[in-house]
């Protein structure tokens, strides 16, 4: 057990990579073998995530104190420039690690239908999983950055080779946008490196936790204007990933062109990295600037909510609508974070978790209908409810979860965001409430056009959702429901760390 406890994060991160290596050794033509290896390699992190869930001590506060992290691994990696292999989990990363493990496994199962270059697809997918896990586990900035960038390459190829008609454009757009953010982050990282010292050794450091105590900062780094610049550099890097307005234009292209399982991962996990990065890095490192920037952040959040919802309403392509709904929902995360209240912060992380589950369902479901009809035009269907009742059940479930029906996880998260942020920004939150109305509108309108009304005879014989697809959706649906009815276990997981984070952000100067 000790071995598991002290290496579980590395195992979760690198088992998929090992799987990818094994897949590359499989001779050509054995596609089924490749699929099953990938399934096993992505399944292994799931029981490990279960171990995280049961073993994690919910009283730990994490954030900026190394001893308050669990499952810590700390080794020297490149001693000459003090890069460490430093992994650990706290209440902010725990929900994300669980989500990543689950969604990656389901996405692999959901990709069994891929028939083109299966070997390359699965190997790249597993490499992507390694990158995602690593981002959520890393506590050394350099390590974090390497994992962060590690995701770009597989994502580029997964969209570019297996994507839809405009895949090449979507892939390079995603790559360029994210790289702009990354290089900004790199510059900030190096500036931080040269302006902080390790309190023990006195050398420069990439250790994120050291960055969070002001006593390690040089005089240059104590200058507020400089801090604003560095904060904004990081913020743009993360905001592109979220994506917040006005950096969101890569998202509809990438999501729409990506193959189903990759859209699931993009929306379910990758978007959360942006907000996770803000919570993990920007907030505790620049508490003063965070407070200074809280209102702009809330405004950006609200623009995301309302503008995203309006864009979603205008779409004729079902997948594009779901993609814009992500923009809208990520706005709630921004709003909740900016409030810097316990309820708002918990609501934000809850929304990251819940939106991961719900949007994964939505993209899976859109994939199901596309596989059968080969198009996604909302107006091109009609009356499907009579032909495919089980499918209709699932998509109605997901739509209601997405629009925030009480009793489902989305409602809990969004309600908490509203409660938490209303104390801080009244007017802004009132505008944000419009987003809920628009959200209900585009979901219900789409539901009506596709599933109700007279049956489009073209689809009278449409095939019902199959067992493999239900296997991908059912666990998500159960979780959405469970968290919606009884959110306490998930909230307990993150509470201690989030409260501490608020203290960190509010306490200094």
């Amino acid at each position: 057990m000790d071995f598991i406890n002290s290496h579980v994060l590395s195992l979760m991160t690198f088992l998929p990579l090992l799987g990818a290596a094994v897949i590359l050794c499989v001779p050509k033509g054995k596609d089924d073998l490749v699929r099953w290896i990938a399934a096993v390699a992505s399944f292994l992190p799931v029981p490990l995530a279960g171990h995280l869930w049961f073993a994690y001590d919910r009283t730990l506060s994490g954030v900026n104190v190394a001893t308050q992290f669990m499952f810590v691994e700390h080794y020297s990696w490149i001693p000459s420039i003090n890069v460490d292999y430093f992994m650990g989990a706290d209440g902010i990363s725990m929900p994300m690690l669980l989500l990543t493990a689950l969604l990656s496994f389901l996405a692999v199962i959901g990709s069994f239908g891929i028939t083109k270059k299966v070997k390359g697809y699965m190997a790249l997918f597993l490499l992507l999983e390694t990158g995602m896990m690593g981002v959520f586990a890393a506590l050394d900035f350099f390590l974090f950055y390497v994992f962060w960038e590690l995701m770009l390459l597989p994502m580029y190829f997964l969209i570019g080779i297996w994507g839809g008609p405009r895949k090449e454009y979507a892939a390079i757009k995603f790559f360029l946008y994210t790289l702009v953010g990354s290089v900004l982050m790199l510059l900030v990282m190096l500036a931080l490196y040269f302006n902080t010292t390790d309190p023990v050794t006195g050398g420069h450091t990439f250790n994120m936790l050291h960055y969070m105590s002001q006593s390690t900062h040089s005089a240059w780094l104590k200058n507020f204007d400089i801090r604003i610049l560095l904060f904004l550099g990081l913020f743009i890097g993360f905001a592109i990933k979220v994506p917040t307005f006005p950096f969101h234009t890569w998202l509809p292209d990438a999501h729409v062109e990506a193959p189903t399982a990759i859209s699931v991962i993009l929306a379910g996990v990758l978007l959360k990295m942006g907000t996770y990065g803000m919570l993990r890095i920007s907030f505790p490192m620049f508490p003063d600037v965070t407070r200074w920037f809280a209102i702009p952040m809330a405004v950006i959040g609200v623009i995301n909510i309302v503008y995203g919802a309006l864009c979603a309403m205008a779409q004729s392509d079902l997948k594009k609508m779901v993609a814009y709904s992500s923009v809208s929902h990520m706005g709630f995360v921004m709003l909740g974070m900016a409030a810097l209240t316990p309820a708002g912060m918990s609501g934000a992380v809850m929304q990251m978790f819940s939106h991961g589950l719900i949007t994964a369902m939505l993209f899976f479901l859109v994939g199901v209908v596309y596989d059968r009809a080969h198009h996604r035009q909302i107006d091109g269907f009609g009356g499907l409810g009579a032909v495919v009742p089980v499918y209709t059940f699932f998509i109605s479930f997901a739509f209601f979860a997405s629009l925030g029906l009480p009793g489902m996880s989305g409602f809990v998260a969004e309600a908490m965001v509203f409660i938490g942020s209303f104390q801080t920004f009244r007017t802004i939150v009132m505008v944000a409430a419009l987003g809920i109305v628009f959200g209900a509108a585009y979901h219900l309108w789409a539901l009506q056009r596709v599933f109700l009304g007279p049956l489009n005879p073209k689809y009278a014989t449409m095939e019902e959702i199959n067992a493999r697809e239900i296997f991908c959706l059912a666990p998500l649906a159960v979780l959405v429901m469970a968290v919606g009815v009884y959110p306490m276990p998930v909230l307990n997981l993150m509470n201690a760390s989030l409260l501490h984070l608020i203290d960190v952000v509010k306490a200094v100067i």
Partner: protein
Amino acid sequence: MFLGNLASLPHFLPEIAVTVTILLLVALHVATRNRESSAASILSLVGVGAAILLSGASPAGTGRALFEGMVAQDGFAVFFKVLTSLCALVVIFMSMDSAELAGRSRAEYHIFLLSTLLGMFLLASSTDIVMLYLSLEMVSIPSYLLAGYLKGKERSTEAAIKYVVYGATASGVMIYGFSILFGLTGSTQIAEIGRAAASGKASLALLLAAVMVAVGFGYKIAAVPFHMWCPDVYEGAPAPATAFFSVAPKAAGFAVLIRFFFTVFAVPDSTPGLWRLASAFDWPLMFSILSAVTMTVGNFVAIKQNNVKRLLAYSSIAHAGYMMMGFVMLSSAGIQAVLFYLVVYLFMNLGAFYVVVLVSNATRGEEISDFSGLGSRAPLAAVCFAVFLFSLTGIPPFSGFIGKVYLFAEVIHRGVYWLAVVAAVNSVVSLFFYARVVRAMFLEEPKDAAGLPVPALTGAMLVVLAVPTVLLGVYWEPVARIASDSVRMIAF
């Protein structure tokens, strides 16, 4: 230690090994009738291999001045001797499979190649401006011949002529600068010149002379605005020679640039062998502008290229710009960054050219469209090429990223933030054209679905070059140490 001629010889073994190999190649050329005999390649491999072993085996220690102060044997020189030899080694392998060189004399080709190598050995270690000039010409003249080696091919001849004209102009300007330096200081030893500069004897005239000298070096490393020859020469020359030009002479150019400006404008630091900037002139500004312009021109012009060799030529200009970031502050950490970058650049750039040679052998073309579908036609080569290209872009987990981190770190550490931002923007721009090639290879369907044969040797060499490209991106401590140990230079 200031050694006389005979006493210097035991420390001159790598150069002697190369010289002997060249002489043997001449003998072979005269003796054998079979122009394509692989004996020349094998002989060259042995000679270069011996030079590497001898360079590595003769401890530089605190450094020696050989031949009455003409050349230095120190860690810095040894580093460049090994680096350029490694490059030559790969290029010799690359030439074995080259279809362009088929039917032409192998021995002659290798004579030129090794003469260039000998010149670079001397260039990286010369501590006297006369020696420096001679070794620069020793690098240039065989390079002209290599560029024009495809007799009867218009492109190749054009390349050679352009190379000669630009080279002659640049070296003319440089030697004029040298003559001013000699007139001002009365010495040809760069250490003497440095002392004269430090004692304040020098003035505007010295600055002018130094700028003229910088023109010569700038031409060798293909820095903007002395880069005009570069794309045409790279495109016209035989591909293996282009690969060689893009790495080795550039590295040697950096070596001499660093050694000259350090010795003249930097003073020894408290740690023996390390240096810091001590000059009233604003060198940092001049070189940071040069660096920014070089990388920007290289990258932006590369976007429009459809010929992969030309694209890589502009990319190599951009990389010279990146490397100059390490040079701007004349600090030891910066030089370490340049040395580190040269090591990773050696692997990734030679690797990239290796794939170009492979594809142009098979398709007789070097356009981006000739690479379409390479991912299914020759998966190994395509994956390796993607690794090299993404490494050139500077994306983790490849070594090019680590190289860039060191260079970025240097300018950020010294507070030249604007240059760091320019370089960061350039990295993003560079992704655009590198990804065009990747896109052709993997995202586009092949025009000709037939598999593209990869000779065993080529496949093996691609792996040999790709492995360090990845490995140094994950664990680079040993190379970082070698680079930091090799920063030490001597001056007497």
